[in-house]
């Protein structure tokens, strides 16, 4: 662990050097983004997350159990409150399904629902389904480097490729030198901030340093945010693919 981080830091240092010397900035930034995405995702993970949807006049909390495998597969379901228990979402590649135990139906999300909010939060279904698009659909460029709490933080500007089907005009990523994503900002085409996700309270979680709290906040409305707080997080080497199927979406209690 420590070794790999040192290695990565060394790689980064080499990268920064080459960025300064040559014009190979894009590749270097891309490597950093890939590393950051890989870092927060791990190979496979099992976690329990408390999601808080905060609005000026109300607040709602739910607890979600989540499994992820690589970048393709993930499965979430709600364990609490009892009213929503069993509601689940399965993601395979860019396809998503939801399951509602009350009507006992699995629905494959049609395109029309992909841009809707997931479970009423500030995350859209697309944020979940296309979370990898940050790597492939964008051209990355290192724009700044600052020091926070004695650690270097790189700021990467990611501009969507001309043909890429992404709605954002730009994303700005704040990545700490140990690959922790501190902040992800989403801009529209006028380069105005639309929403931003911030990672806070970095501590040891599942065997590595990880922000315990993730907060997605819309830029133009005060007091509205969705917060994810990791209650448990465990990184694994692998999980069986059979876990990420429609039938386990129906019966999440089995696991």
């Amino acid at each position, binding site marked *: 662990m420590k070794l790999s981080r040192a290695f990565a830091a060394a790689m980064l240092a080499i990268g920064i050097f080459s960025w300064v010397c040559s014009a190979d900035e894009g590749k270097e930034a891309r490597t950093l983004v890939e590393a950051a995405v890989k870092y927060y995702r791990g190979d496979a993970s099992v976690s329990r997350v408390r999601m808080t949807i905060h609005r000026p006049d109300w607040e709602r909390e739910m607890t979600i159990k989540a499994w992820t495998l690589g970048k393709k597969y993930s499965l979430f379901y709600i364990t609490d409150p009892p009213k929503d228990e069993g509601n689940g979402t399965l993601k395979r590649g*860019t*396809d998503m399904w939801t399951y509602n135990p009350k009507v006992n139906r699995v629905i494959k999300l*049609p*395109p*029309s629902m*992909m*841009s*809707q909010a997931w479970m009423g939060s500030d995350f859209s279904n697309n944020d979940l389904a296309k979370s990898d698009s940050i790597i492939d659909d964008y051209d990355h460029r290192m724009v700044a480097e600052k020091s926070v709490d004695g650690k270097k933080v790189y700021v990467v500007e990611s501009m*969507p490729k*001309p*043909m*890429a*089907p*992404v*709605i*954002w*005009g730009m994303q700005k990523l704040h990545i700490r030198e140990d690959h922790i994503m501190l902040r992800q900002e*989403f*801009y*529209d*085409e006028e380069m105005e901030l*639309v929403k931003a996700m911030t990672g806070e309270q970095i501590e040891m979680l599942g065997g590595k340093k990880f922000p315990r709290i993730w907060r997605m906040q819309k830029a133009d409305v005060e007091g509205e945010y969705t917060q994810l707080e990791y209650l448990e997080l465990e990184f694994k080497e692998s999980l069986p693919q059979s876990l990420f199927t429609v039938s386990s979406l129906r019966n999440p209690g089995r696991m």
Partner: protein
Amino acid sequence: MILQMGWRNIWRNKRRTAVILTAVIIGVWSMIFLGALMRGFSDRMRQNGIATLTGHLQVHRAGFRNDPVIENRITSPAAVLDALEILPEGARWTPRIRVNAVAGNARHSAGITLVGIDPGREAAVSFIGDAVRQGRYLQQEDPLGIVVGEAFVRKFETRLGNKLVLMSQDANGEIASRAFRIVGIFDAELESTEKQFGFVHIAASRKMLGVGDDICEVAVLLPSHRQVEAAAESLRQRLPEDTYTVETWKDLLPIVRETLEIYDVFIFIWFLAVFIAMGFGLVNTILMAVFERIREFGLMRSLGMLPRLVVVEVLAESFFLLVLGMAAGNLIGLLSVWALSVNGIDLSAFSAGMEFAGMSRIIFPVLVARDIFTANATVFLMGLAVSLYPAVKAARINPVEAMARP
């Protein structure tokens, strides 16, 4: 001689004649003018309907109309396009891809109808060819361009040159998404049209949906709307019924069709209502004229005038009143229609309420020869018919009793 008597008689009481003439004139004018307005409404509604991607005829794969998904596309367009050769001279047609899609940018997302068009052909068939107000229309090669409506741009807080991501279901049931740039902004009569449609090049939409050279529909515009039924029938014979449906605008726009039919009846009812009001006035006037002149009719009868001729004389009076009134009414009606046909009547203030039925913001009155004829024939024939009552009354006057009156 009798006609001359009638003509002179109506001018004996000038005020009464002037009043009844005014009634006839206003009646005829209102029939012509309001008739023309209603025709203007309904014509515009039909034209709007046809220009808004309907055309006179459309060919679909059977089932597409009930379930307009990409699976119900026409998979062998060549067969359909071959069949179109039998269309009459001057007919224009265009192939389209048409699916429901979701358009999104950083702040908004909404469902739209994604229309993949052949820019050259489409311009000759539907409104989009000359509706682009900002930017440009689609070009022959335009893999990234999208043309959307003015109201849509406002709703999405976007502008020319910005990106729009469209998502829809592709041929394999997967989610297809593609980024387009807004190259043109169109204006339409109806705000709902501006919000509903996004136009892209047909090649771009085919590629996005992965459908090869397939199409969803063919729209046909004929030189005259009288040829619609015949053309539809001949196409139906060329295309197997279980695979393709050929529909006319009347099938495609049932609301417009029904509204037009209601208007036809409504115009006639209007004519009748106006006439009934006018008819009572006319009967009353003539009846008064007859009762005033009982001695006179008695004298004429005593001098040997036949009752038949008395009837003719009274009818002649009514005839002159009607003809004068109709002539003036028609003239004023035509003049007012002509005056309004330059600028039309701007209904923008109410347009939000009118849009449901596909009505325009500006109404231009339209004269239909049949309406003018119906209006005049109604007034003339029914006018004479109701005048028969006072005329017969005059003819039945007993000369002895009449002469005995003071």
